[in-house]
């Protein structure tokens, strides 16, 4: 009798386990990509869609935990940065294999770094490591130990490895052989990507079960955000990584358990004037834009609280600086957002000879103040912001014309023809370390948007920013770096080459069937712990 009971118990346990395994086997996570990945080579990733594929498939030596914002060991069990800050030694995990079965060793790390730092590759990830000219040296000491030496110190060196997916030196599949939780199984260009579970993935949970829990990930290419939202509410996809305020509120009203606001993000929305001396603009307009008083007046006449409240439905904060308050260490806590004050704006304008006549602001030469702002078409938030700024500036007699352009046309104007007056755009920021924005703040840089590629700094304050940014990049003393970055924030706050408007919240939507998801501020907000995510049995059954 007892034996029969035990046998029955075992049989039931087996059946339950089999059912669970079957449910797991059929499970597929689905979400949308806004565009086609431009590359599947992890070393050449530059766009969001490719970054998603890299995150899901790439194995890295260490990973920045998106929640704790601390580095955690992955393929490297430990590491040590030298005092000079120009070299790092890794101890690597043993018995790890690529998705195609090729074994992983220090040779692969050396190969990855040599390829990444090859100047001919022009890798954005590689450029993050490039603080000076000179070769990178890799010294392999045994199968599991490697030292990588750079020609000059690199600030935040270890954190940069979060972006370096190791590629195999020997696999015939080249970069398609991966060390991450999934591998690319199918790519229907322009339609969808199918990632399947990497059976050689090294990670196991506390119970010894191999990760990830979800068998496959289907990434549908979907540019239309309305349809993406519709598909989420129908249960066709499991989450939306980034939502705007309007969709968030709609979802929160209908299914509050699906809407997540992780708080203020690192991203900012800003506006700037074209200060390029050779721009095809009338001289009197160039003179307006070059005036600090004019820029301050525009800034003071924009009601940032209203932008946050109306456009972003309260899911944004008035912005202060180029560093978001979410970046607690680097944000200059002494600075406050510029207050909305039309009197302050008119006073500042008065100092430059502007005067308000019959509701129209005129400069010294009698020109009515009118200019256009370009922004990217299809971004509802920016279009609404532009409309609200138009109303705000109308209050001080300025006529603002809003021009929406598709993204390539807009980029052409701000980077090549410089045929624009003002631009409203957002800065997407993935990196907590401000050093990542060197190419925005150096006056010689191409991404110094208001006046790029200057041979010598056009203004004294730009020269000061250049000096401070270079000094912080050369120093490994965090306190000194913080002082320099604080001062840069102060200068930008005073001079307003970028008029910072708002910092948006990190909003996401997650279906009830997706478990273990803990949305965070840093990208990728929802699936940062992809190998821990699970799907409810109901979702698995429906797919």
């Amino acid at each position, binding site marked *: 009798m007892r034996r029969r009971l035990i046998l029955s118990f075992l049989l039931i346990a087996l059946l339950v386990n089999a059912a669970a395994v079957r449910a797991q086997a059929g499970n597929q996570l689905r979400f949308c990509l806004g565009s*086609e990945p*431009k*590359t599947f080579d992890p070393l050449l990733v*530059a*766009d969001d869609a490719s970054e998603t594929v890299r995150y899901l498939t790439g194995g890295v030596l260490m990973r920045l935990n998106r929640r704790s914002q601390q580095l955690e060991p992955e393929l490297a069990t430990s590491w040590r940065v030298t005092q000079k800050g120009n070299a790092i030694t890794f101890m690597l995990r043993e018995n790890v294999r690529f998705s195609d079965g090729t074994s992983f060793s220090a040779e692969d790390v050396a190969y990855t770094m040599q390829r990444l730092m090859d*100047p001919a590759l*022009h*890798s*954005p*990830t590689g*450029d*993050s490591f*490039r603080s000076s000219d000179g070769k990178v040296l890799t010294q392999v000491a045994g199968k599991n130990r490697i030292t990588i030496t750079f020609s000059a110190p690199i600030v935040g060196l270890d954190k940069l490895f979060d972006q370096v997916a190791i590629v195999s030196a020997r696999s015939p599949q080249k970069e398609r052989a991966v060390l991450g939780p999934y591998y690319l199984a199918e790519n*229907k*260009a*322009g*339609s969808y990507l199918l990632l399947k579970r990497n059976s050689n993935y090294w990670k196991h949970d506390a119970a010894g079960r191999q990760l990830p829990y979800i068998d496959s990930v289907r990434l*549908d290419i*979907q*540019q*239309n955000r*309305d*349809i993406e939202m*519709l598909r989420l509410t*129908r249960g066709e996809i499991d989450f939306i990584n980034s939502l705007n305020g309007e969709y968030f509120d709609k979802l929160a009203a209908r299914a509050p358990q699906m809407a997540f606001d992780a708080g203020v993000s690192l991203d900012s929305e800003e506006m700037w004037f074209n200060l390029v001396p050779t721009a095809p603009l009338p001289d009197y307009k160039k003179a307006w834009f070059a005036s600090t008083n004019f820029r301050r007046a525009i800034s003071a006449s924009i009601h940032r609280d209203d932008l946050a409240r109306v456009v972003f439905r309260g899911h944004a904060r008035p912005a202060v600086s180029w560093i978001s308050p979410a970046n607690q260490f680097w944000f200059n806590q002494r600075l406050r957002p510029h207050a909305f004050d039309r009197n302050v704006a008119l006073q500042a304008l008065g100092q430059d000879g502007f005067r308000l006549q019959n509701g129209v602001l005129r400069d010294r030469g009698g020109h009515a103040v009118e200019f256009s702002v370009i922004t990217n078409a299809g971004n509802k938030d920016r279009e609404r912001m532009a409309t609200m700024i138009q109303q705000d500036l109308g209050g001080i007699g300025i006529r603002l014309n809003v021009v929406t*352009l*598709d*993204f*390539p*046309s*807009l*980029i*052409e*104007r701000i*980077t*090549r023809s410089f045929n624009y007056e003002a631009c409203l755009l957002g800065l997407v920021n993935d990196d907590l370390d401000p050093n*990542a*924005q*060197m*190419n*925005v703040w150096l006056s010689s*840089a*191409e*991404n110094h948007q208001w006046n790029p590629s200057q041979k010598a700094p056009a203004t004294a304050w730009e020269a000061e920013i250049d000096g401070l940014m270079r000094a912080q990049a050369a120093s490994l003393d965090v306190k000194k770096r913080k002082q320099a970055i604080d001062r840069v924030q102060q200068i930008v706050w005073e001079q307003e080459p970028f008029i910072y408007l708002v910092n948006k919240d990190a909003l996401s939507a997650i279906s009830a069937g997706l478990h273990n998801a803990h949305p965070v501020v840093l990208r990728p907000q929802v699936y940062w712990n992809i190998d821990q995510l699970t799907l409810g049995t109901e979702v698995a059954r429906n797919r």
Partner: protein
Amino acid sequence: MRKLVKHAGRMVIVLLLGGFLGATLVRIAPGYGVDEEELDSRLSQESLQALRQSQVHDRNLASFYLRYWAQLLHGNFGFSVALHEPVRQLLAERFPETLKSIGMGLAIGWMFGLGLATTAVMARSSVIDVGASLLATILLCIPAAVLALLFVIAQAPGRLVIGLVVFPKIFHYARNLLVRSVALPHVLTARAKGLGGLRVFVWHVLPVAAPQLFALAGVSVCIAFAAAIPVEVLCDLPGIGQLAWKAALSRDLELLVNLTMIVTLITLLANSAAELVAQPMRAGEV
């Protein structure tokens, strides 16, 4: 035979010109050769310059077009820079999807359009006439994109939208044509002699209307193709229309030139076929 050669010659000229004009428009469009990666603040000056250089390989339009035709004659349709696949492969993957959508759309549009027009005219039913006219007018007023969106919301098959776009055009044209045809003296005489409705339609109305209906068939193929773009984009159907949209957004020159030529070729083939079939009929009438 001479007519066929003439048609073929005309088609080749239009095709060459269409392709060249398509390439010219893409090439001079604002934002051509620009990549949003240029705003990536991680990129060094050298990488940014290299990225820009990589975008301007087709700076000379004439040389691009000559090179394009040279490789086309060798069966090479070029490479899509936006989707990172050979154009030929993309077309092979997506063409069946669009053919299915257009085939279904044309079948639905013609079945309901011609069917309702014939019923309304031959049965002399004002209820059917007014009802079908109203429906066709409403559908004519709704843009294809809005219809597609409604179908997405209703979770209905997107392919049906092409049928609803084609239907009103077929109905209005066919109805007016048939009304004119049944009013012809020989049809009235046939009716007066007591011939049945079906016989009158098949022997006396249809032969008169057929040449123009064939011309309409050619036009309807173009209408269906044009509707396929918003429908495939919004309903997420991986066909040629969706491909054209993606190619346009990313200024994918080689892909766009190929698609322009394909659409031009299909339009020309449909119209030429209709003309070739209709011409002898018209000659017979005379």
